[in-house]
């Protein structure tokens, strides 16, 4: 099954497989297994959930419950550009809501989601450590401060054209 899975996903399964064998069917090993899967694939694919379920004898519904409970796990791959918009105190009072609304509107996705073309993922964070620039957001490693809705549109346009 491991071989087929790796073929189907067209991903490197080696590391994840070792962890799976090491942790065996101990139900307590579920979280390390999911972390290992996410390290290997960048997210937790549904097929991997089914695979762990069969291997570790944990119901798939229960694994799904665990994956959706912890914010560290993703069920979809992240986009090429990860937009982290700050909704911390300083940004909040400086109008972060209008920035978030603009992002939702422009990207057509919700917070925590990835656009269908795989370009953008939108995350909401509590602080980016540069409150003097509020409201602020990051796209991958680049920071954009003193944002206005219009500025947001321009930034996204720049990334779309890259």
């Amino acid at each position, binding site marked *: 099954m491991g071989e087929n899975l790796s073929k189907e996903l067209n991903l490197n399964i080696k590391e994840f497989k070792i962890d799976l064998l090491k942790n065996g069917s101990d139900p307590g090993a579920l979280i390390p297994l999911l972390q290992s899967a996410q390290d290997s694939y960048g997210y937790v694919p*549904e097929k991997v*959930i*089914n695979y762990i379920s069969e291997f570790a*004898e944990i*119901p*798939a*519904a*229960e694994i*799904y*419950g665990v994956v*959706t*409970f912890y914010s560290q796990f993703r069920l979809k791959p992240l986009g090429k550009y990860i937009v982290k918009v700050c909704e911390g105190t300083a940004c909040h009072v400086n109008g972060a809501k209008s920035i978030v609304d603009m992002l939702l509107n422009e990207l057509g996705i919700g917070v925590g989601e990835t656009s269908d073309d795989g370009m953008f993922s939108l995350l909401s964070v509590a602080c980016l450590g540069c409150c003097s620039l509020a409201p602020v957001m990051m796209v991958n490693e680049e920071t954009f401060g003193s944002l206005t809705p219009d500025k947001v549109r321009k930034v996204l346009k720049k990334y779309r054209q890259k």
Partner: protein
Amino acid sequence: MGITIKINNEEYDFEIGETILEVARRNGIYIPTLCNLEGTKPTGACRICIVELGKMSAPVASCSTPAAPGMDIQTESPRIRKARKTIIELMMISGNHNCSAIGNSKANLTDFMQEVIEYDGSGSICTAYGECELQSLAYKYMVNNRTLERIPTNYPLENIDPLIGRDFSRCILCGRCVQACTEVSVINAISHGYRGNVAKIVARGDKPLPDSECVYCGECLQVCPVGALYEKRSKYDQRVWDVTREKSTCYYCGIGCRIVVSTKNNKIIKIDGSDEGEPNRGQLCFKGRFGYDFLYNDKRLTKPMIRSGGKLKEASWEEAYNIIIDKIREISGKYGSESIGCVVSPKYSNEDLFMLKKFIEKVSGKTNIGHSEPYSKFKIEYSQIGEYEKIVLIGTDIARDNPVAANYIKQANLKGSEIIEINRKKTDLSKYAEIKLKDLSEFKPDSKINYLVIYSPEYDISSLEGKSNISLNSINSENNTAGAYMVGIANENFEDMKKKKMVFSVSSIPSNEFNTEFLVVIDQFGVESFENADLILPPSVWVENEGTYVNSQHKIYRMKKIVEPPGDTKSLRAIFGELLNLSGSGIKKSTPKYIWDEMIRKDLNLSDDIAYSKLKKGPVQIVDGFFKKISLKSSGSKNDRFRTHKLLCNHCEGLSVIAEKRINPGE
């Protein structure tokens, strides 16, 4: 006096391990609960059962807090009542609980109802109205749900499933359905997903139930305290004030699960497991819970049909009887009376089967009648399965054939019983089995250990017989197989029967297998399943008749008539009572009481202890030796086990897909 706790200023004894709730309930003290599900581990999820442990301590959930010596508990103090009120209010405002006008002072019922219409498309009051446990608590604690603003629902109604509707707007996340799925039926199809204010009950991948491991036992439906899970086919028919409820027995396998039949306007609209105790303790499988509306299928026959000029035409009972009597005379004259035979599926009451047998004996001069069910007996109570450390399953795919028995096995397995499966094939229970063997010869029982063996009745287990540490049990596929054996209808080799010149096929094998001159079919779906029948009679079945049945434990149950039979259908006992009279036997009456008391009991020398009137009080166990007095031919023809189950489920709305997957074909 042992260790005690104080509840509401009175001292009560308790045992170590008992929860506060258990001590209170045992002593008749009321503590409200929502998430608590008897027989499963407490989760403490809903908090409604909180009690006071003293002014200095925060309230504790009584369902999950063990009683400890010296505890001084108050169950209805002002502080507790206030907290419960808040808990209920928070639940009420977080969903479409339109049993009351809800929302803050700005909102009104009309706006709220409009929202409900947008959500579920009906705008009707919640389907659980009048039976909802949350609603009744809201009344009890006089909850004012107009102080907080209503929170809209995150998840849309799941309407795709034909049988189970999931209304997430009414889910209070008590988790009873998850408990039922993981600890009662042990299917593990659903679990808690997400977190905080977006929490939801999810199946694999948060997909609808049809795409999950769900086997449609419907335990979740039965335990949902609110209107979040409901039987979809009768969503708004379930109004408690419109519905009549009667207890009866399931129509499918030999376990004979006790059911509660809800009817409205002479029609069954819902079936629940009856919690009166044995054999099923409230549990049911998909067949028992959802497999009832074949009664109302358009294809059901309601008038006798006679073939004339190659086509089947409606006829009166009189015409049909006359043809049968004439044909019997003609065929006995030509080939001798023993060329008349009968095959029957033991799905009919003892009274039905007895009259049928009497008639066949009368016209054929012999007991030319048989069914295809092997003889079996389940010797213990199903709830005792858990008392065995070793459970051996031989040749049986019990989770498909007798799912409720499989529930007990899985529950025992969760508590530590070991499953040994002896089967060449992979079954639904294979994944639970600690030991898997291909052949019985590989099984080497330890003489010091008690084994519970459950075998498929067509499997040869003679090598295990006569050992005191091995309890051998099997379950019939048809509900009244034991009754058929009791009234003297045994397992027959159908190959001989197929060669008879005139055959009465009563809900049994398909007609194209017969080589008769004249084939009489008695079946509710006679026209489609018996293409070359010469004459078809429409029987009334199951809850349309009163009668007695014997389950696989050999307990006799008396069943009430719950609904009126449709059209011109008649019970088998009436049909064959009339035919017997037409062929010269003076049958005085064909009421169930008369047949049981004056015919069956006299015929079989059964004592007054099981007089018809006494059976009303409850089931009676038939003594072990009894079946040996009557002939027990068990030739083991296994051509159509479960065929009737499939046929019936295929005639129920929304059940054919699951029946195709979950009912094993006859081998």
